[in-house]
């Protein structure tokens, strides 16, 4: 019945071309947070919370195109870097290395446990009578990004499962007579609208950085948003040609920052400041100050500076700390304001 209709011809833009990352207007905090996780994937993910229509999903999908490609063993289901790292169950014969774009895996709401962790390959079992493992989304996301839109609406049992894997970096499957482990180190990117439901504090804490996005508040910026989006849709080729160049420059900076990261030094002073900020904010556990320090180092590396300074700490502290505060019902100020206030007091 679809044959008589001309729906696909109406499309003016090729499917699945993400909007270029550098063409996103404003939203500096969100872009910075994403760049930092690209520089140091160990930061532990980004949580983007905000109003509707502020480009949350756009930014995450744009990140995929921006990131430098990774080298993987051809055909390896978990994107291993060398043939030795390939899991036994995958039976990878070739040791050919290929370049692949950094994987960005979408975790849709309502996904089943089987799809996430991987399960017995039913097709092989039915047809050949063999017991073999069919890898899930976690395997595909290894060394890349796992993106959860509307993360606050995800079912609890999936959330628990993700928490466990994100923490250990290993996915363990013990079911249907299978016993399989494979590496699953990924950066968790969640986006959502806080009005639709809150995240459990346990999950909040696992995200390294958090950003709150708002609609741009000047007419000029808003006009620019519409203009670029429209150009993207109608004048696709020349628009992409221009912004691809910008994206490439950003990618080069990220690659350079990754190389510089091990040599970026942190002084005793910086460590003390991290601890002081964390203490003053009263965050639970040590994950806050660890993330703060790592984020500051990533920022220093991204800016091409040899050491972490107070300015770096001040810039990343709202990203690293604002979601770790305990909610105080009698304090009317938002968490970002509270972080800013504490920074003012401790870092002067």
């Amino acid at each position, binding site marked *: 019945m*679809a044959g008589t*209709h001309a729906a696909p011809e109406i499309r003016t833009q090729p499917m699945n071309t993400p909007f270029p990352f550098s063409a996103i207007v404003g939203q500096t905090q969100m872009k910075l947070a994403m760049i930092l996780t690209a520089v140091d994937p160990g930061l532990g993910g980004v949580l983007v919370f905000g109003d509707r229509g502020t480009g949350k999903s756009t930014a995450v999908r744009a990140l995929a195109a921006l990131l430098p490609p990774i080298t993987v063993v051809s055909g390896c289901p978990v994107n291993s870097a060398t043939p030795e790292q390939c899991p036994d169950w995958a039976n990878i014969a070739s040791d050919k290395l290929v370049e692949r774009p950094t994987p960005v895996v979408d975790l849709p709401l309502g996904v089943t446990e089987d799809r996430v962790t991987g399960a017995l390959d*039913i097709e092989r079992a039915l047809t050949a009578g063999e017991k073999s493992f069919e890898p899930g989304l976690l395997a595909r996301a290894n060394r890349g990004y796992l993106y959860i839109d509307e993360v606050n609406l995800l079912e609890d049992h999936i959330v628990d499962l993700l928490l466990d894997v994100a923490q250990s970096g290993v996915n363990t499957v013990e079911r249907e007579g299978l016993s399989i482990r494979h590496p699953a180190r990924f950066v968790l990117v969640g986006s959502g609208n806080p*009005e639709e439901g809150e995240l459990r504090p346990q999950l909040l804490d696992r995200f390294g950085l958090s950003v709150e996005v708002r609609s741009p508040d000047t007419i000029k910026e808003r006009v620019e948003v519409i203009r670029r989006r429209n150009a993207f849709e109608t004048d696709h080729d020349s628009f992409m040609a221009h912004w691809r160049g910008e994206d490439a420059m950003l990618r080069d900076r990220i690659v350079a920052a990754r190389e510089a990261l091990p040599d970026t030094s942190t002084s005793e002073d910086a460590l003390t400041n991290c601890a002081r900020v964390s203490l003053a904010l009263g965050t639970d556990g040590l994950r806050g100050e660890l993330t703060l320090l790592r984020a500051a180092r990533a920022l220093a590396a991204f800016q091409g500076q040899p050491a972490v300074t107070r300015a770096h700490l001040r810039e990343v502290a709202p990203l690293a700390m604002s979601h770790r505060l305990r909610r105080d019902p009698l304090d009317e100020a938002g968490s970002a304001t509270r972080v800013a206030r504490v920074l003012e007091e401790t870092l002067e």
Partner: protein
Amino acid sequence: MTREVRNWDMALRALAALSVAPNALRGMILRARAGPVRQRFEEALTLLPLPVRRIHPSIDDTQLFGGLNVAASLSAGHMVRDRGIADTPAALILPMAERTNARLAARLAQMLDADTGHVMLLLDEGVEPDENAPASLANRLAFHCDLGDLRLAEAPSHALDGALLEEARKRYADVTFSSTCIADLVTAAACFGIDDARAPLFALCCARALAALDNAKSVGPDHLHDAAALIYPCRATRIPENMPEPPKDEANPEKTDETTAAGDDLADIPDTLLIEAVAVHLPADLLAGQERKRASGSRDAGAGAGQRRLGNRRGRPLPFRPGRHGGTARIDVVATLRTAAPWQVLRRKHRPTGARLIIFPSDIRVRRFEERSDRLIVFAVDASGSAAMSRMAEAKGAVELLLAQAYVKRDRVALVAFRGTCAEVLLPPTRSLVQAKKRLSALPGGGGTPLASALQYSLEIASQGKRAGFSPNLAILTDGRANIPLNGRTGRSEALTDAKAMARQWALSGFPAVVIDTSARPGPQGRDLANWLAGQYLSMPRADAECLGSATDAALSG
């Protein structure tokens, strides 16, 4: 021309634009009750260049995104997958859209974002003003039309020609527009307090579609006005400044303080015609709607996701989950058999002499149900000197009446009385009418009004109730004239600050509240209190127990 008739024309125009640019405009929400008028509109949907399919709010993922077809797989001996609705571009009609839960809304929104070429038509049959299609979905669709109480005679059949639309569709991509168009649309959106960046984009695409319909080479001012009038009014959150004539001018005082807070950036309005074109179509209850939204605060947030509880005994069925036999959960036999079915060939190979049906523990699927939790109504009754003694008798009567229906309504009631220096929990959460009567008979009156203390106790009871699985509600009977702060000494201003802080805390908890102003001449204090509590306000100077009971029940169940 009445408002309804104009709406019908607008709806048809929106449909025409949608069929010219389905991929850019994504769809529409049609608010109308099921009936011949809606039927007539649905007939016009054949103009869309897509096959029309109906889905329903409880559609499952397999139908939506495709999945394993067990029966076909077994007979064919290899995997047979069903194609889901999301796989082929179609115009999806979703009736009863106001009942869509957040999960389905999120999945459909994801589908729209993925550019699968779908167009969605949400048929919103909500009766109450706050029964709406989920916002996450509504924002992604260009048009929102309200047919209201239109009669069939007022809704003539459409005069749109499929062939003309087809031609317009081809012209659409070549329609040009001047760069001032974007600026005008964005400024207009800002004037109406629309923050979503999708709105101006939709308006731009709509203007182009309308220009294509008119066989124009570029977007003219008329197209721009029409497009803005189609897209903006339902998204507006305020009436712009310097409006010559707001459509309803009764609510001006509130309006001004809202607009001044919006910033100076919006001071210059370049295209007043555009603004006026939109303003004509603003919904009559715009401000009331905003007020309502603010008052209900975080509660409308979950789109009804609030007070629910998962169980395995009763309630509405949810999708099954893997589980264990012998637990408290009930086994879903059909789902279990379906899980086991694909394995039978394989298992029989290993166990040729076994039973004909081999089911492993891992196949077992259990049922889950979702249950609405019982309601806990906390009555906080002002027994101070400022509230007349007769009030107390009525409050007691109302509590007893509610308790009498408690078994049917599954309510529990608690009573906090406040007088003198401190509040007192007269009746812990109970369902027992006898116990309640006994405790209520000895309630003295007179003294100060420790409002803050009353709120503190109520919040304590409510949070305990919440932990025990109830949905707490507060009904507070007072005149709102607090004069005793939390520390028990006197001091009117301090008392008010404390009461405000405690009320805010209640509002943060997200539990519903209703303030029943019992004073003979209601002052502003009661209304203030309702605002702080993010609750409703009822003024009932002369209510008897029965009135009070039914009003409380109605206000809290709304």
